[in-house]
């Protein structure tokens, strides 16, 4: 896992980045099990986010992985065999919205601050905090926008940055997981 790896252009048409969305029971060990399916095959995970869903007993994992679409399909099918996995889908090329957030501390010396702010405005980057030496920007967008913003501020000098990794959400409900099968009472481990 290396979220700081710069975004790489798609070169090999067979091998592209896939955005995978996996709904799981919110229990310990689930993430390592799923990540293990990728590491066991020698695939690096480009980015990874996990957090609870509206139903707090479920979590959603969003993963960006560099592999062939067919292989992504195969791994997702393996994911769906895990008892803790609820459903798994490849959201790449589907009707979904994708966002990523970056926090970046950029050198902002006297005399360059105004131009930096002007450029940041183009990306609707927000200044979260400032010191006499630098600004910390917050930018949200798809990976392309984030990359473009970073390209713009790079000449000013990036001190440090952190990216959340991509999250993605379908525009319409598209779940094979029938909601009526959700039990009313919390599962045993729900309160965790």
């Amino acid at each position, binding site marked *: 896992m290396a979220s700081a790896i710069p975004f790489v252009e798609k070169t090999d048409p067979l091998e592209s980045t896939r955005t995978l969305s996996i709904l799981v029971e919110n229990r310990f060990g689930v993430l390592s099990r799923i990540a293990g399916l990728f590491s066991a095959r020698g695939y690096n995970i480009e980015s990874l986010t996990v957090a609870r869903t509206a139903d707090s007993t479920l979590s959603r994992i969003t993963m960006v992985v560099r592999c062939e679409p067919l292989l992504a399909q195969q791994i997702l099918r393996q994911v769906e*065999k895990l008892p803790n996995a609820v459903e798994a889908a490849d959201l790449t090329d589907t009707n979904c919205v994708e966002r990523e957030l970056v926090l970046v501390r950029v050198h902002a010396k006297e005399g360059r601050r105004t131009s930096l702010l002007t450029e940041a405005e183009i990306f609707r980057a927000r200044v979260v905090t400032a010191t006499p030496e630098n600004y910390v920007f917050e930018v949200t967008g798809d990976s392309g926008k984030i990359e473009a913003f970073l390209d713009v501020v790079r000449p000013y000098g990036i001190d440090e940055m952190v990216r959340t990794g991509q999250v993605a959400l379908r525009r319409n409900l598209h779940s094979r997981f029938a909601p009526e099968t959700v039990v009313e009472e919390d599962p045993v481990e729900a309160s965790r």
Partner: protein
Amino acid sequence: MADANTQTDRQPHPLAGRRMTGAEMIVQVLAEEGTDTVFGYTGGAILPVFDAIFRYNAEREARRDKQMQLIIPANEQGAGFMAAGYARSSGKVGVFVVTSGPAATNSVTPIRDCMADSIPVVLICGQVARAAIGTDAFQEAPVFNLMSACAKHVFLVERPEELESVVRTAFEIARSGRPGPVVIDVPKDVQNWEGVFKGGGTVRFRGYETRMKRLASAKLSDAECAELLGMLRKSERPLVCAGGGVILGGGAPQLRRFAEAFGIPVVTTLMGIGAVDTTSDLSLQMLGMHGMAYANYAVTDCDFLLVAGARFDDRVAGKVQEFAPNARYIAHIDIDAAEIGKVKQVSWAHVGDAGDAFAELAARKEGFDKDFSPWLEHVRKLREKHARGYDRSSRAIQPQQVLECLNEVVKGAAAGKGDAIVATGVGQHQMWAAQYLDFKAPRLFLTSGSMGTMGFGLPAAIGAQAAFPDRLVIDVDGDGSMRMNIGELETATTYGLPVKVLLLNNHADGMVRQWQKLFFDNRFSGSDKTLRRKDFVKAAQADGFGFAERLEDQGRLREALERFIAFEGAAFLEVVIDPDAEVYPMVFPGASYKEMSTGDFIKGRSAEDYAQGPRRTDAF
């Protein structure tokens, strides 16, 4: 999980509401799941569970009730393979219980082996107390992490209130869908915890439950049947390839009815042996790397291949692109959606129970009047012309000859006792057993198919014998495999289990030796055992075998096998075999069936078949 077989759907548990320890709850749920035998090895972190079994049995003894048989191996790996042998032969979930740390790591191999062959077992591991987890405590191992990569599912019981439902759920996960091993890691303080036994309830897995429900209702539709039968109608040379899934799902009777109704011959994978009666007219026996020549030729010749409960493993398919090259249609039935299209793209697929699918198809036989008898005649000729063979003129004992003879002897001996169960180690002897022994029913041939774990045979035979004390259980083993778990010889005699251990000793890791002949210019690095000084007969005697003999004289073969099989208790027969006997046919690794070599004693199709000879490749 709601399953009609579990206690949850029946009357309230007689012990519901009773206070008891976590260890006692584990034993109660095992009993409720019908566990009559527990294999395992005790130790610090599992002491409460072993004590609870002791007390459970003492109480039952006082009432003259049936006890939970406890079988203690020499090594935890043995316990795992015993549980696997029990599960493979009986179809029930096998159970083994071990302590933490080294016991848990010794169990990794059988767990992975069960995963690879889809065998339902439940392993209960002791773990250090919760407060000590992660401190590098004595006999601590990261069981959750280790087993996560190997098992179908792993539970670490952190909350004692969950323990009861976790154990129940473990059985459900182990046997449902594509079966597999489930591990429960139970910290010692959770075993000692006291609480109220609920007598029911499981841990919910919403996605898994939904998928299991979908599988249960995944009946072949009229349209799907029509599509498949349409392909069949357009074909002249149909073939069924049945794998272990057909046996695991109990689909063998339906497969047989389907094959007979349509008159379609059947090949099986190693794991599918016994899905059809290997002696029946429609059976072409095993296909693959060391499959029967006629089975592999039939795969090459067929124009329609229906694969069920099998997964195009590399030992089966060889060079995948050239597998079944003349098949216009390949159809695939499997309970695991992830297997469809994983290796080979197919023209028709169904995710569901193979037995149900065969029943649906067989029910539509009426009106299907295609006659496949010319193909059946072709296949009959293949079987005649390319029959199995070996060096019958040699003065050294040939392993195939031993097994042919064993087959005859067993036929006589097993009459009235049910068919013999055969377990094997891994290597040449395993392949010879698969080729030369008859298996009329499923669950008679127990072998480590996917993982290929040497040392599997003896403990698996012990486990099967524990499940069926009155049946004839034979471990056909090799000297290399025997050494791996030789400590379990004593387990057989300790528990009075009358297993018959037939050791084919060629003083080598024979399969490795065969590959070294083919690919490494006869450099027998590591595989030569001629300087080893092990006296297997003395070892068996030392472990209490009342029958322990070595046979080197071909002329005494039949007589020795007869006495060996007829012996009342555990018996050990070492047969010193020709070290140069080889397993043929052989489809070289990564090669296609076209390049199959039939060796010196089986008639191949033509010189072209192996004109190229073996190539050294990275295929393994």
